[in-house]
């Protein structure tokens, strides 16, 4: 008998350190000229913004760090970006594409 794994929903906050689990792959699909996420039985097509965020999801940077980085790159207000990223990270965590 396998011990049931304790399981809870991960909640995205500014201090969360998102990362792609080993079985989720962010890949550049050269043939089609775009980035894709390969997941069990699914292929997602992240938009450019999502790709920028995902590339920074290394399990070390926090959501806040990622927002700060992108705020600098895009010369945009960090508060706004951070809110977007929290939402995106939550959405992807719920889809099983990111772990926090």
């Amino acid at each position, binding site marked *: *008998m*396998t011990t*049931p*794994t304790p*399981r*809870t*929903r*991960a*909640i995205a906050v500014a201090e969360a350190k998102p990362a792609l*689990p*080993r*079985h989720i*792959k962010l*890949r550049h*699909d050269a*043939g*089609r*000229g*775009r980035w*894709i996420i*390969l997941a*069990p*039985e*699914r*292929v*997602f*097509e*992240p*938009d*450019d*913004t*999502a790709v920028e965020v995902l590339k920074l999801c290394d399990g070390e940077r926090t959501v806040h760090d990622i927002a700060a980085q*992108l705020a600098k790159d*895009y010369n*945009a*207000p960090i508060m*706004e*970006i951070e809110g*977007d*990223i929290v*939402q*995106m990270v939550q*959405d*992807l*965590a*719920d*889809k*099983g594409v990111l772990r926090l």
Partner: protein
Amino acid sequence: MNEIEPVVAEGAHSSSSGAEGAQTSPRIAEGAQAWPRADHSTEPACGRAPMGLLAELTYRCPLQCPYCSNPLEMDKPSTELSTAEWQRVFKEAAELGILQLHLSGGEPTARKDLEELVKTASQSGMYTNLITAGVLLTKDRLKALQDAGLDHLQLSIQDVDEANAEKISAYKGGLAKKRELCGWMHALGMPLTVNAPIHRANIENLPAIVEFAVAMGANRLEVAHVQYYAWALKNRAALMPTREQMMKTVEIVDAAKEKYKGIMVFDFVVPDYYASRPKPCMGGWGRGSMNITPSGRVLPCHAAESIPGLEFDNVRNKSLSDIWLTGQAFEKYRGTSWMKEPCRSCDRREIDWGGCRCQAMMMTGDPTNVDPACGLSPRHAEFVALATAESHVTTPPPFVYRRLGGTVG
């Protein structure tokens, strides 16, 4: 963010032909954006390059599920493609642009060379998914598959009631082996999908099936109402649930999705006998994916061999890209030009692609007719009446078990 794949693999165990999840998922980070955003107008480039390949490595299987999607007449083990042949096919597949490879069967772990095949596929850059009933795997073998680069495993279960599972699969002790396998998966940190084909004989256990998947640590659960082709069609009267039972599963899955949000992802495949519009079978004929049988025939979908007038190429004689681009069987029903009314002038013709050709064939004798699962089909009422009548028979007929080399139950 768009989801661009017909999502559920057409594995023998899953008996599915596309899930509800195939719609576009809500785009991430909605709302006002001051910083640059992509325009989302890019057309998914799945038009001419396939994204998914279902490789049926063998039809050998220790189980005998009466809803198996393998054909009634199965390729003999002696005709199976060799290791080198599959390896060549996988390299060609990756070059053709295939992103996801589903290793299926029969029972794919019955192939002794599975590790080698996974390794080649994974090195060619494809996402590798093993679709298995799990009873032949050992811990060492699982580890070897992981080392070979296996990305994901999909475990089919027949039921969580042991006696009933044994009755459905005509195989003893399967559930205990599956539990053990889940434990190894967990220990190795491998991602797990549980696939539960749902039908009259296990539908009442759906709540327990959901709890089983959670307890086993599954990342995903596919609740896949059996699709009535091949063995399932033969056993339809023994498997078809009532409409009320089907509706109840919708409620159960909706509630479970909410309850396990962020914990387990659900895919839900509904039986189209009770739908008013058909599913986009395979995401459209020859549009996004293909199947290869154990002896190398390349099919636009599982059940394509039930349609007369199609010529199936074999990977032994032709390259995969030739077969995909110009093969007669792929060209025949690709796109919309083969359609008749009501599909031809319907505004859903590029959404569901007229549904399933095999089902149209089965019901009307003409594969170019509209799928009877569609409410606009003149045969729809009859189609629904069939299911309704069968599902209400008090004592369903006994199963005709899936057996190699013979359809005798």
